[in-house]
């Protein structure tokens, strides 16, 4: 009730000026303004399941403001019960967001014309759809809740066209995928948290927009989570908030380089008190960052300079409300448009491993083992897809049912587990992937040698399938 | 004293005087510091020079009678017991401070008193190494094997065969480096590889005056190459004009030399060697010498030649070393020194033949075996490849 009253007053007070703006010039949301998700303070501490709280921002609003003008923010989604997670089109004309028209509606993806604030629904799905982002190919990616026997309950990534057609699921692991952005190289960077067998700490995963070549990008220290949306800077860094798993909504601002994300972590706010929940690159190496002093306070927007030991100058605050993310409403450079090897008429993908017994002298202990492994077992969520002997050089070559999650563990000749199982994998239809070894160091490149396994036909997984009739695709 | 006997006496004195002068002239250089310095301490390690006075008086006299033809003694034999892969040694070549020996089971290198063997595992195309030569320009070692030609350069082996190059045939009997060219004699013709243009010229009965492509030996000098062609005598090839000239036995295939010194003694030739404007040609039926005008034939019955069955010849200065099935002979065309091993023990002898006179010097020990296929000499050392191992002899110096 309180929320409705606040939102009613807020929308009433700001929508008037909005209408005025539209009548003054041709664009409702002026160039140079920012749009932010604004969440009533009482919801931030609502004790709901931890994966939910990151997106179930009931009662949230999307507001625009200009950091240079001391004008109050203007709510753009006054027609929605909840609206959050804005994403701006490359031409700066449109905004995607996740919204609920009414309180009990499922979250869906909407698009708003920033010239006239007219909006339309893109997805019409019974499940919640959140975290939308524009893709370089003109479509969009978003998170959708999935419940089925293959992956149980998960928040998977989907892509579709801007008219909602061409809906495709692109991730297939039993995990939550949140806060997705597109890197300059054209790949998706998403916060992922494996849920089976037990929830892990969230990590950053990269993949191509067709869901292929999914790979670890960044893993924080144990017991940390990644609230909020990461952002890529012009000089090739990724900026994001990293919080203690119990803190949930905020913590320190971390910077990693695109070139070497796993070994370039820098804490930008180690000497700043309070909690940050996001940072957006702004001007002259400064950031628009969300900060609050303590759990009892609200996240407000500050102009943060990493060289200073303070959250910086207060840019925008809204009493009783938290700011949970922000994007610039201007046109911006389109990322690389990556080609796709996926062919939906193919039922399988191919996986090559060079040597499961490879011992990495540079990272002793990580996946290294002294016992010689002779077999691998491919595991589903609650089943096994079969035992496969590896070649003498430790290589194996699999043809795996596409879009099916699996893990691999390696066994010695007596059937004892030598290593694994590894984290969840999936292959898209017609995808071809390779790895150097099990639990290999992502910074190791393959040895230039022909694996014995590729001198034979690939082993079909599940192994009980002896023959497959499917479309043959010649890539080269 | 009769007039005639007086004339003989005077003639004998004059001959002796001439012989003594020649002996002094020829032997003097051997005593210069330069010559001594050239000898390789590594090769000679542990072996003192034997000078003539260390031999019994009678032997010393006999050795002096060898005149310009060097006499080698203090023989040492190397066999599998010493580290050779096989006692069947096909060829030997001295390369500075090392000696390369081609055997039935690989190439062995003797350096710093140790043997190291290279086989197909190291990159040789075949373990049967029958001929080795070294390029004076590059120092590269060219190796003739039963499975192709191989260039051994700075430790790396590169194979040329009839499949991957213009090589005439993989059965390579002889290799000879001449400037930038590498000549080979093979079972399918002779070939010349230009190491700068990487091009092959090959010579068979189709484009050269041969009866068949089989060639056993090749050597070159003064802008010409001489190919020992089975049944074809000697094929002379002028490298500049690309013209051929063949020397065949006027007596054809007859195994006896009807008309002496009328040409090469037989058409079945086994090797050629050229030095100091003299061409030496070996056959299985005797040996020939050609000075550019006249031929002269040598046989075991009318000279000091160990046997008419000759496998290989190598010329050094005015002297030629002749490898036969019954010993090693050395000659300047007049005086002969032939080395033979006793049948029943390790000892043997050096037979010095001058005119009709034959004198024997006992050698203890002697060469390892009388079947000899390869030989090489440098400074004071002679290496011989035999069917019973490879032997090293030292020059017996004449101090007088």
């Amino acid at each position, binding site marked *: 009730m309180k929320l409705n009253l606040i939102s009613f007053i807020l929308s009433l007070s700001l929508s008037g000026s909005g209408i005025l703006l539209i009548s003054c010039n041709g664009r409702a949301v002026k160039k140079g303004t920012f749009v932010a998700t604004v969440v009533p303070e009482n919801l931030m501490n609502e004790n709901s399941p931890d994966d939910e709280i990151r997106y179930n921002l009931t009662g949230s609003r999307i507001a625009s403001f200009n950091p240079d003008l001391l004008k109050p923010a203007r709510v753009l989604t006054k027609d929605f019960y909840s609206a959050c997670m804005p994403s701006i089109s490359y031409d700066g004309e449109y905004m995607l967001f996740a919204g609920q028209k009414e309180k009990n509606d499922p979250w869906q993806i909407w698009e708003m014309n920033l010239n006239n604030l007219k909006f339309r629904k893109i997805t019409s799905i019974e499940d919640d759809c959140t975290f939308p982002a524009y893709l*370089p190919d003109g479509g969009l990616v978003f998170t959708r809740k999935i419940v089925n026997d293959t992956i149980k309950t998960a928040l998977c990534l989907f892509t579709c066209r801007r008219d909602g057609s061409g809906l495709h699921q692109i991730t297939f692991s039993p995990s939550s995928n949140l806060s997705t952005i597109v890197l300059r*190289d054209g790949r998706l960077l998403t916060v992922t948290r494996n849920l089976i067998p037990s929830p892990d700490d969230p990590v950053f995963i990269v993949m191509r927009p067709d869901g292929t*070549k999914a*790979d670890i990008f960044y893993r924080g220290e144990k017991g940390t989570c990644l609230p909020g949306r990461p952002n890529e800077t012009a000089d090739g860094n990724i900026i994001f908030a990293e919080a203690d798993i119990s803190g949930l909504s905020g913590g320190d601002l971390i910077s990693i380089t*695109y*070139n*070497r*994300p*796993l*070994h370039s972590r820098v804490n930008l706010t180690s000497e700043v008190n309070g909690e940050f929940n996001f940072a957006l690159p702004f001007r002259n190496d400064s950031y628009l960052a969300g900060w609050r002093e303590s759990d009892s306070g609200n996240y407000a927007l500050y102009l943060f300079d990493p060289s200073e030991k303070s959250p910086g100058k207060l840019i925008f605050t809204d009493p009783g409300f938290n700011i949970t993310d922000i994007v610039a409403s201007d046109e911006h450079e389109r990322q*690389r448009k990556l*080609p*796709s*090897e996926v062919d939906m008429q193919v039922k399988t993908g*191919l996986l090559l491993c*060079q040597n499961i017994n490879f011992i*990495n*002298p*540079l990272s002793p202990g990580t996946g290294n083992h002294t016992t010689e492994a002779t077999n691998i077992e491919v595991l589903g969520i609650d089943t096994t897809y079969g035992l496969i002997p590896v070649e003498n050089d430790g290589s194996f*070559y699999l043809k795996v049912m596409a879009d099916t999650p699996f893990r691999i563990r390696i066994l010695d000749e007596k059937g004892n587990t030598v290593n694994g199982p590894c984290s969840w994998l999936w292959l898209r239809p017609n995808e*071809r992937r*390779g790895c150097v070894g099990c639990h290999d*160091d*992502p*910074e*190791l*490149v*393959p*040895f*230039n040698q*022909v*694996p014995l396994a*590729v001198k*034979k*036909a*690939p082993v079909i997984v599940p192994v009980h399938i002896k023959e497959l009739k499917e479309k043959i695709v*010649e*890539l*080269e | 004293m009769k007039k005639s006997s007086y004339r003989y006496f005077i003639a004998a004195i004059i001959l002796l005087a001439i012989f003594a002068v020649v002996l002094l002239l020829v032997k003097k250089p051997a005593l210069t510091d330069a010559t001594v310095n050239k000898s390789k301490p590594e090769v000679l390690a542990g072996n003192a020079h034997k000078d003539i006075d260390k031999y019994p008086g009678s032997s010393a006299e006999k050795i002096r009678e060898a005149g310009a033809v060097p006499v080698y003694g203090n023989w040492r034999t190397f066999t599998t017991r010493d580290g050779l892969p096989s006692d069947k040694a096909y060829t030997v070549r001295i390369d500075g401070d090392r000696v390369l020996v081609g055997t039935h089971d690989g190439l062995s290198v003797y350096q710093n008193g140790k043997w190291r063997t290279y086989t197909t595992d190291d990159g040789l195309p075949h373990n049967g190494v029958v001929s080795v030569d070294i390029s004076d320009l*590059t*120092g*590269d070692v060219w190796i003739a094997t039963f499975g192709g030609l191989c*260039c051994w*350069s*700075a430790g790396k082996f*590169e194979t040329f065969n*009839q*499949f*991957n*190059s*213009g090589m*005439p045939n993989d059965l390579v009997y002889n290799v000879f480096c001449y400037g930038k060219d590498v000549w080979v004699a093979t079972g399918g*013709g002779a070939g010349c590889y230009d*190491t*700068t243009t990487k091009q*092959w010229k*090959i010579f*068979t009965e*189709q*484009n050269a005056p041969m009866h068949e492509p089989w060639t056993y030996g090749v050597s070159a000098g003064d802008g010409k190459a001489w190919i020992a062609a089975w049944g074809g005598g000697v094929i002379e090839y002028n490298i500049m004009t690309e013209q051929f000239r063949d020397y065949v036995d006027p007596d054809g295939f007859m195994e006896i030399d009807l008309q002496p010194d009328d040409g090469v003694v037989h058409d079945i030739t086994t090797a050629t060697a050229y030095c100091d404007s003299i061409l030496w040609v070996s056959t299985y039926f005797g040996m020939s010498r050609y000075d550019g005008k006249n031929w002269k034939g040598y046989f075991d019955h009318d000279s000091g030649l160990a046997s008419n069955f000759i496998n290989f010849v190598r010329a050094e200065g005015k002297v030629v070393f002749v490898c036969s099935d019954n010993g090693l002979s050395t000659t300047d065309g007049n005086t002969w020194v032939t080395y033979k091993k006793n049948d029943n023990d390790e000892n043997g002898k050096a037979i010095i033949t001058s005119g009709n006179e034959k004198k024997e010097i006992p050698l203890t020990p002697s060469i390892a075996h009388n079947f000899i296929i390869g030989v090489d000499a440098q400074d004071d050392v002679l290496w011989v490849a035999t069917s019973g191992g490879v032997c090293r002899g030292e020059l017996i110096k004449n101090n007088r």
Partner: protein
Amino acid sequence: MRKSLRIIIPLGIIGILTGVFYFPFHKWAREHVNYMTATNDHPLMCTSCHLYIQKSGIIHKILNAQYYSPFNLALSENGKYLYVVAEEGNALLLVDTEKQKVIRKTAVGTRPHTVILDRDEKRAYVSNQWSDNISVIDLKSFSVIDTLITGNGPAGMALNSDGKYLYVVNSFSSDISVIDLSTGTEEKRLTAGNNPAGAGITPDGSRLFVTSRRTLSAPYGDTLRCELTVVNNDNRRVEERRDIKSAYLMENVAFTGSGDLALIPLIRPKNNVPTIQVERGWMMTDGIGIVELKPPGRTIQLLLDEPNTYYSDPFGIAVTPDGKKAFVSHAGVDCISVLDLDAVRDIIAGSTDEMLNAYSNYLGISSRFVIKRIPTGANPKGLAISPDGKLLYVAEHLEDRIAVISTDSLCTISNIDLGGPRRITVARHGRRLLNNAGHTFQNQYSCYTCHPDVHEDGLVYNMASIDMGRNVTNTQSLRNIGDTPPYKWNGKNQTVYKQDGMRFSTVLTRTEAFSYKELDAIVSYIMTGIPNPPDLLYNANGELTEAQKSGKAIFERTHDFHGNEIPVLNRCVTCHPPPYYTNRQPADVGTLASTDDSMLFDTPHLNNIFASPPYLHDGRAKTLEEIWTLYGKTEQHGSVNDLTKIQLNDLVEYLKSLRDPAYDHRESEILQASFGHH
């Protein structure tokens, strides 16, 4: 009224004709362009294919321009004068480093490669790679006073310690000419590795290091070995042939002043691994080879790349006089890597041999010794450091410019314009694209990487077309291929436009495809700007040797030597007719392997075939001879079983004499002109 009719009637007729012909023409044009480009949304721009691919004539002259293309550099001892080899200008330029401008220019031979100065700086030596000679330049008069004959394709050079001998690396004939400067003649020729290029004398003057670009021939799947040839300066003989494993394209070599290290830029290809992804360095990696000049004398390879960013096509290398920093030019990503050599020494000292071996495949190691990446103009190649070590000069090959970089601030402080054309022609744009890795995912490799010198790298790749481990193919040359479609070994691409289009990006570059404007440029360059070098080794003047004439007769024969008629399809000349020696038809020559999918192979063109080993679609034949001695026994690849060894040799000699037809007649002028273009 009549007056108006006179206007209306013709206009009406024109209108009717336009109405009648426009739609059929538009339909035909759409189909034609869709076929040629293998797309369906190409704007119907006739100029895309019909304007920019003119090889000669007035349009060609108007559309193209003559560039200098600086390639290598040398600096005077006082640092005042910079000598610049203009690869396409066929000239040596003298730059005043204080005035920062070109003050003298002299013509040299064709495609000059390297310039070096003698010790007292009286003479410069310029290697003319396409003339097989060295231009000797008197620096006082700045004119050519002598020409020294070399082997085929002279590239890198070095003077021995007393300056009496000039070592010339012959990149095409893969050997080293030792030239006695007292006579100006070649004393001897030493065999080097495959396609050698770089040369350098160790600081103590005792040895010459020569780096190779291609690997030594070996069957597909064998470990790659690229030779570092070491020549003893005393006897001028090769004393060591060191195999640098799993690497190639070792373009240059430099030494630290103290003589503890030799540094060699190199590329580590993954040709034996199925090309299934670019991520995680599965196609190409770039690195530096380090040779310890003191015991234990190991060879170490460290990658210059980073996990998500690659620095392709390392070319030049220069070391500061104090031996603290090294600079490597990356021609494929337009930047210079700055290496902290003390950090490199620490890595070597603090690592086991096992770790050092692992570093050659470890993308993280560069963060320990690469201290900066300095951006440059297009396609940086040769480097030179001022004697005081303060300035680095960079030859920006496709920018016609020299960059001047401070070795202290590690920033570009100025650029020296060499005076080439300011405008960038379409073909020049295409050449830049072909040389740049920006259109490959994470900049991992450029077209040039697998096609060095716009030729081919001599490697066999597993393109994993349908299945991994199958259909391995030998890289094909890009030289003068414009007139010999279709492309690919299976001939599936009817045009260069298709070859480099979407398929190319899906399978090879795995990033955003070229735009149509970029495709126009690439096609223009490939179709017009890549001439073959002259065949100076086997056919310098068009006069065939006796052996080649005999080989020609065999190539063109209709009857075998037994008098039997050879079936038309089994005659060499049927599938390989002049001038390009291809009928551009698919054929089965009995070479389909059990690991190949059933297919016919495109008939390759044969001009300059001597320069493209290995042979056949999967590179199984190391030499031309092997095509028939080992792999032609079924008589499907021409009738050869009646040939004697001499005749087969003659045929091979003839094949080696096949050169670009432009050298055979008046078109040679056009080709010579095109040398200077793009």
